[in-house]
């Protein structure tokens, strides 16, 4: 109704000069008129100019007095002509009315305040304050002196009245087309979609965010790594055994018992269960022998090997402990195999931006006759090129259970330098032959962490943002597909 009134009036007339007066004339509330003007202005059907007027309004206190009379008048009326004791009078009135009433009535010389008695000084008073408040409430003019007095008593406050003057806008029409934000079933049913005019859509902003779950980036990378291994013909090893004996974790790998990795600084040894109960005894004897005095063509380490050290339980420091068990099992009835695993390993290390006490190791190995370093290099180039790293070079390195050993470096285009991406080698005869594998069987193997390529891939520089409870949930939701191996 208000919209029709405004648009209709402007069809006949040049201007609505004052929205306040217009609302009075039309008998429509000013708020309603203002809302319509704002909306029409937004769609440029009209041009609206602000009008501001200041006037006085009553405060809460002022409103109370306009209703019930000023405190001084209330106090005066509460005093009977014969006077009253102070206590009695106080009982009759609200404390604030009493307090303000006393001050004002004394100032007006309306009453006499004795030591105990209060009495009227005049017979009759006019409640001028109330009259003025009522006048202001009705929008009537009041002289400036009175306004000042009321303002001082905080009974009135300035009110800013806002309205508009309105003219036709550039898109003026006597009747506005319906503006829609969306197409609804009703529009289709009624067939009124042809008349719909849509509010302009902001394509510079994004749409409504989707709702749904997301997978962890590290595990997305793991999934792709698994795909790569499967495509390369590798079979997964069972790695769901975090607790391992030192024997399978170190000794069987020809890692001497004084090796620094076996320090408690680097490895978590278990208090409970502290020792392993069972080891394959004949194999243990062969391992002891190869450590102490060699054999199988080796000089050995020449130290006294201790069973107690081998029995100590620990949290596996590498998944190679599992590979060792798998190779030992394979030695009992040899067949060529390609194995892989991706699982958790533990190191007793200080946690920082690039190190955690647990991380994921990726491991691949091939066990077959006639394997050479050339095969290892070939398989590494195949594997890493699938991860998008086709420029590799290899550096001689030391590792107690592989010989030859090679550190794998890849040229990082972003960092413009060679970065180490993994380790590899051929397992030592001192590791393989005591297991009972045939002499002409070689095992080529490589390992890397799952975290490092993931961090490079997703541009994460703090490992704790990626893995563990300090993870940034936003990062899990925002991160893109893992396209490794595509």
């Amino acid at each position, binding site marked *: 109704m208000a919209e029709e009134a405004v648009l209709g009036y402007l069809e006949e007339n040049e201007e609505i000069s004052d929205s306040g007066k217009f609302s009075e004339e039309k008998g429509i509330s000013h708020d309603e008129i203002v809302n319509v003007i704002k909306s029409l202005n937004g769609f440029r059907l009209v041009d609206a100019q602000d009008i501001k007027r200041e006037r006085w309004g009553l405060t809460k206190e002022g409103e109370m007095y306009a209703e019930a009379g000023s405190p001084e008048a209330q106090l005066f009326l509460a005093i009977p002509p014969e006077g009253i004791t102070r206590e009695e009078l106080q009982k009759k009135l609200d404390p604030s009315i009493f307090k303000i009433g006393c001050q004002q009535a004394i100032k007006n010389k309306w009453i006499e305040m004795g030591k105990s008695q209060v009495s009227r000084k005049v017979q009759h008073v006019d409640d001028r304050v109330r009259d003025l408040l009522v006048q202001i409430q009705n929008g009537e003019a009041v002289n400036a002196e009175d306004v000042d007095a009321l303002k001082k008593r905080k009974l009135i406050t300035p009110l800013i009245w806002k309205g508009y003057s309105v003219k036709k806008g550039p898109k003026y029409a006597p009747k506005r087309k319906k503006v829609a934000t*969306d*197409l*609804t*079933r009703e*529009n*289709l049913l009624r067939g009124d*979609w042809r008349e719909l005019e849509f509010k*302009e*859509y902001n*394509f*510079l902003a*994004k*749409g*409504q*965010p*989707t*709702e*749904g*779950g997301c*997978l962890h980036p590290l595990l997305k990378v793991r999934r792709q790594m698994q*795909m790569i291994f499967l*495509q*390369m*013909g590798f079979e997964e090893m069972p790695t769901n055994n975090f607790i391992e004996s030192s024997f399978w974790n170190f000794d069987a790998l020809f890692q001497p018992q*004084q090796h*620094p990795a076996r320090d408690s600084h680097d490895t978590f040894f278990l208090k409970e269960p502290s020792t392993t109960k069972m080891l394959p005894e004949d194999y243990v004897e062969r391992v002891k022998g190869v450590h102490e005095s*060699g054999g199988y063509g*080796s*000089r050995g*380490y*020449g*130290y006294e090997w201790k069973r107690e050290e081998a029995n100590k339980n620990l949290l596996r420091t590498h998944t190679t402990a599992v590979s060792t068990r798998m190779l030992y099992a394979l030695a009992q009835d040899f067949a060529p195999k390609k194995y892989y695993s991706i699982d958790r390993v533990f190191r007793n290390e200080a946690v920082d931006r690039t190190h955690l006490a647990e991380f994921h190791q990726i491991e691949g190995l091939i066990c077959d006759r*006639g394997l*050479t*370093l*050339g*095969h290892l*290099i*070939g*398989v590494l180039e*195949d594997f890493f090129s699938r991860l998008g790293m086709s420029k590799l*070079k*290899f*550096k*001689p390195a*030391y590792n*107690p259970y592989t*010989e*030859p050993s*090679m550190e794998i470096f890849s040229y990082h285009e972003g960092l413009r330098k060679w970065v180490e991406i993994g380790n590899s080698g*051929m397992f*030592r*005869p*001192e590791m393989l032959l005591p297991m009972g594998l045939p002499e002409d069987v*070689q095992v080529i193997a490589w390992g890397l962490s799952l975290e490092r390529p993931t961090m490079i891939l997703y541009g994460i520089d703090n490992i704790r943002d990626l893995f563990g409870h300090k993870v940034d949930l936003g990062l899990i939701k925002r991160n*893109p*597909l*893992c*396209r490794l191996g*595509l």
Partner: protein
Amino acid sequence: MPTVSVGRDRLFQAIGREYTQEEFEDLCFQFGIELDDVTTEKAIIRKEKHLEEENPSEDEEWIYKIEVPANRYDLLCLEGLAQALRIFNGVDPIPTYSVANISKESMHKMHVKPETSKIRPYVVCAILKGVSFDEVRYNSFIDLQDRLHQNICRRRTLVAIGTHDLDTLEGPFTYEALTPSEINFVPLKQTKSFRADELMEFYKSDLKLKKFLHIIEDSPVYPVIYDRNRTVLSLPPIINGAHSAITLKTNNVFIECTATDLTKAKIVLNTMVTMFSVYCERKFEVEPVEVTYADGKSFIYPDLSLYQMVVPLSYISSMVGVSLPANTVASLLNKMQLHAEHSVSDDKQTSFIVSVPPTRSDILHPCDVAEDVAIAFGYNEIPKAKLASLKPQSLNQLCELIRMEIAMVGYSEVLTWILCSYKENFTMLNRKDDKATAAINGNPRSADFEVVRTSLMPGILKTIGHNKDHPKPIKIFEVGDVVLLDDTKDVGASNRRHLASLYCGATSGFELIHGLVDRIMEVVGTSFVSPGDETGYYIQSSDEPEFLPGRQASIIYKGKQIGTFGIVHPQVLDNFDIPDPCSYVEINIENFL
């Protein structure tokens, strides 16, 4: 991996040539060591004191920090590094170390008392005669002991080294184990005499030494070495006596290594004497010491004999994967300090007798020899051998990943027909056939099979039309191929992999489909950019007949339009008998490869 700090200029001088940093890094990489850091003495001090970085001045000496393999104790000092690299470069021959030929009578002697077996049972000794020290050599000598203590000696638990000025002492020496209160001497760097138990207490506040005290602290007897005048040489593994301290002027050095592991003690002793016999009057010659145990058994140290290992050529080739002639292999081994003599057996098998010098305690097995051949040949020169493996179709793998992501935000997958009717592909979508788009079937059995779809839209809309009773909203998607005419192809047409998704509800869900577009772009790793920017994607309003005007847009990805989304035109909805508003997106996802 241990790190060795050496002065760059001295190292180059010892190697006998200058390198640029890059050249030197390459050399390290080939040899299997790594230039870890380049710094200066002042920079190290500044770092320790947490001072501001300053640019080092020209005259400061550059220090190379070099990481060496943990089993190469001979590379723990400048002397060993330089020698190994000179030999690797073919500048020097393999040195021959020898034990001075002196009679047993005139040999220095060390007598081991039986009590030592309770705490630290072994000792090995040797003498460097006529050593000429200067400050640099002297520091290197001390540093090598520190590094050996840290590494192979396992912080002195397995082996502890004591070095003495022989001319201040008088043999024979005794290695004993006594109760702490019986031992009194002036330790190194002190002026007053301490009783051993008091000394242990005294060192509890010594930052460097306190970490070694636990090795003997709780033992009733402490190991101690005396000369014939009861001068204390050392209280191993804690401290030497002040009396026999070596100085720059020391000429003859007595070295003793006490140990709980004899093999490692011998390696440590050999490393010390082989590295520093280069400064002896008689280069590479070491004077022996006879060590006699309580049971009368005696041994002469050091044992600098070569360890002989027979390694078949075929074994080396089978490990490295390269067939090399015998003399090539022999000269490669020479570069790694291994002398190799080859012989041919009756069955024409070539074998090497490899002589492992005392510096190469890391060579345990022929596989170590094979590795040295591979290193000297060059890891990066080895021809690669390919093993069988399979490659996936990238486009199909990408589709798998995208499909998962779309299902995960709540859209269900549909699988519709490639063939559709001509009307469905064109007029029902408000589209005109420009005769240059669609492959047309010549002999369709029914109208359903007239055209090979050019978009996924007909199949998706037919699915909605046939599921009117399904609770709303309906959210579905499909990833599949469409076929477009294509002159560049031999047959004149080619497939395109498209992704389509549709929302149908009481309202159109236009903003939801817009949000899905954002999510797809997020998972393919593309950022939202301003119009015109070709690094990401942006949206701009479009004018396609199948969509409602004002509520449709093109998706621009890296400057190229790859798809459109919008509210499906009510006329099109009506054509497919759909009573509810729908929003729809279709994207060519081959662009994401």
